[in-house]
């Protein structure tokens, strides 16, 4: 490796450490301290590491609410992201390949989804009339509706880099529209799809306000809600609060680490030819 790349890399690592890693070390330290030590909020090593004690206390709070929350959050995330990838790609594909007034209108409506803040109470009324209020499937559909704009935007921008010649070749071979999409185009969108999966699943898993309104109820808790509730519960117990933060950061971390390798693999395998 060239010397320059090496030096740059080392400096980069150091900077990275200070900016991005220190806050997490802080969270970890706070999470394993005792209540009194945590209240001082110092960046110091704990006198005694209470990792297991704190962990058990947080998980046990309110009848193991955290476990229910985990399950709910994971189900919602997986369901929503699957639909978002599918729909986002399909719509982005049509919009990019078929520029027309109709496409522009659809694009405009999708962009509106990014811009307009959702109206809570009318949405609750709609959900209620459809029998979807306070259900996980209702929540999934809400996340899809709110996340569609981002997905569509992302796919539309990147499908531009896939040459039409590939489509035309497939058409000449007699492929039907859905075949062109699923067999030719979609596989080439792997990096974008993976990016979309990572971003959307992290966003939905970490979403707080939407489940707060559309999914109330003790059995419906999601992980962000537990963190927020514990704030009033643990007003003076920062150690438990930070342990909670630590615990609910693990799934997104796992998703990222796993998919990140795939993204890199996809890109180094040649990706899309110019």
């Amino acid at each position, binding site marked *: 490796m060239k010397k320059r790349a090496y030096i740059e890399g080392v400096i980069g690592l150091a900077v990275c450490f200070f900016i991005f890693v220190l806050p997490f070390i802080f969270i970890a330290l706070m999470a394993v301290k005792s209540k009194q030590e945590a209240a001082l909020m110092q960046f110091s090593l704990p006198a005694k590491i209470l990792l297991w004690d704190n962990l058990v206390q947080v998980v046990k709070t309110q009848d193991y609410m955290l*476990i229910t929350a985990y399950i709910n959050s994971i189900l919602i995330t997986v369901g929503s992201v699957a639909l978002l990838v599918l729909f986002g790609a399909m719509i982005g594909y049509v919009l990019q390949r078929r520029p027309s007034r109709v496409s522009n209108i659809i694009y405009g409506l999708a962009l509106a989804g990014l811009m307009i803040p959702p109206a809570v109470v009318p949405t609750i009324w709609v959900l209620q009339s459809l029998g979807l*209020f306070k259900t996980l499937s209702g929540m999934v559909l809400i996340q899809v509706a709110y996340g569609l704009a981002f997905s569509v935007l992302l796919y539309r921008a990147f499908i531009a880099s896939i040459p039409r010649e590939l489509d035309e070749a497939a058409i000449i071979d007699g492929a039907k529209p859905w075949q062109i999409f699923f067999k030719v185009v979609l596989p080439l969108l792997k990096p974008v799809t993976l990016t979309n999966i990572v971003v959307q699943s992290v966003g939905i898993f970490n979403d707080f306000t939407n489940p707060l309104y559309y999914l109330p109820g003790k059995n419906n808790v999601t992980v962000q809600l537990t963190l927020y509730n514990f704030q*009033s519960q643990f007003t003076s117990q920062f150690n438990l609060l930070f342990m909670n933060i630590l615990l609910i950061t693990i799934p997104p971390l796992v998703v990222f680490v796993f998919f990140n390798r795939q993204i890199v693999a996809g890109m180094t395998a040649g990706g899309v030819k110019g």
Partner: protein
Amino acid sequence: MTNTFSRRLFIAAATTATMAIALASPSLADTTLTISSDGNAETVKALDALTKAYTAAHADVKFELENRPGGAEGDNLVKTRLATGEMTDLFQYNSGSLFQALNPTQNLADLSDIQADVTDSYKAVVTSTDGKIRGVPFGAAMGGGIYYNKKIYADLGLSVPKTWADFMANNAKIKASGKVAVAQTYKDTWSSQLFVLSDYFNVQTTNPTFAADYTANKAKYATTPAAVKGFDHLEAVFKGGYLNADFGAASFDDGVRMVANGEVAHYPMLTFALGNVKQNFPDKLNDVGFFAQPGDDAAKNGLTVWMPSGIYVAAKSTNVEAAKGFAKFVASPEGCKIMEDANGATGPYLINNCALPADVPPAVVDMLPYFKAGLTAPALEFLSPIKGPNLEQLTVEVGSGIRPAADAAALYDKDVEKQAKQLGLPNW
């Protein structure tokens, strides 16, 4: 490899949770009542004790307690859920003007027939505009005044101030001795309102009809000298340099800690804070005293009182009768006793025939004489349905020196205008 491990863990967790849920399901003949509360430690403790006692006496009624987030999110959640008919069977929430903002006539069940043991003063703050009583008291009445550290007072030879001038003189002496005079805790913005709101007794002494005039748009904070005093006091304390260094980021818990440990001499706060002292600094309970916010006249010294929160029954609940049964229990001397035992006595309860225990902390002892002598006035939010939502931000601004007191009072009047119009009050 990572995949299989996390999958196994997931399955294990899912199985455990499913089993736990299955084992916890009640039998069909039982009623399960859901209760939503603000999740504060004291609230949860009291509700826990009450529900356990009730189930012991009525085996077929079980309870599920839910916490909601505090502050704005909690208020929002309550209003939304009531509006969409998705509220729990019972819920704990503030009384007074906040109660009025819930549209009680529409959303809350009529509880007029279970008020046998409730004091009249409380009934007034949970009555909807159609005259029906729709709540029962939960917890003790609270006084708004100033906590003081007895040790510091003893060390410096200070006596409890009877006028505001005396209070400021004490502050000067405390500052001169090197200690911090007054704690302010603006991380919890609601705590910044105390100097303004606790002054109401003094406002009422000079302007007895202020509440009525204020509601009828005839009196304003900015143009009523007695009312502006609250804002002026807040400004004066900041200008005198009497505040703790971290006033902008200190929390309510910090404030309690500081006055209990003697890091600070004064902390303006509501008396429910004693519960916090008892829980976190039980050995310092005797070091904390309390006095009402003094006005200008030493002879007319009285306490501004906050009514406790209430327990309400959602009108659209499917278990209204069963819920009312529990509400009645809460509003009985027996229920009162249970709450007392759970959190200790932090003030008088609003239930007749519910006496306070003999051993109460000094701060409570300091508070009771005001009640006994009738030297109390309800806080403005219990006499008038209008309370501007931005008061706590304005008081933070005044207390941090960002905005002058007179400006803040004028802005608050404008803020209140919105609330009045929303409630459709006449004359606005």
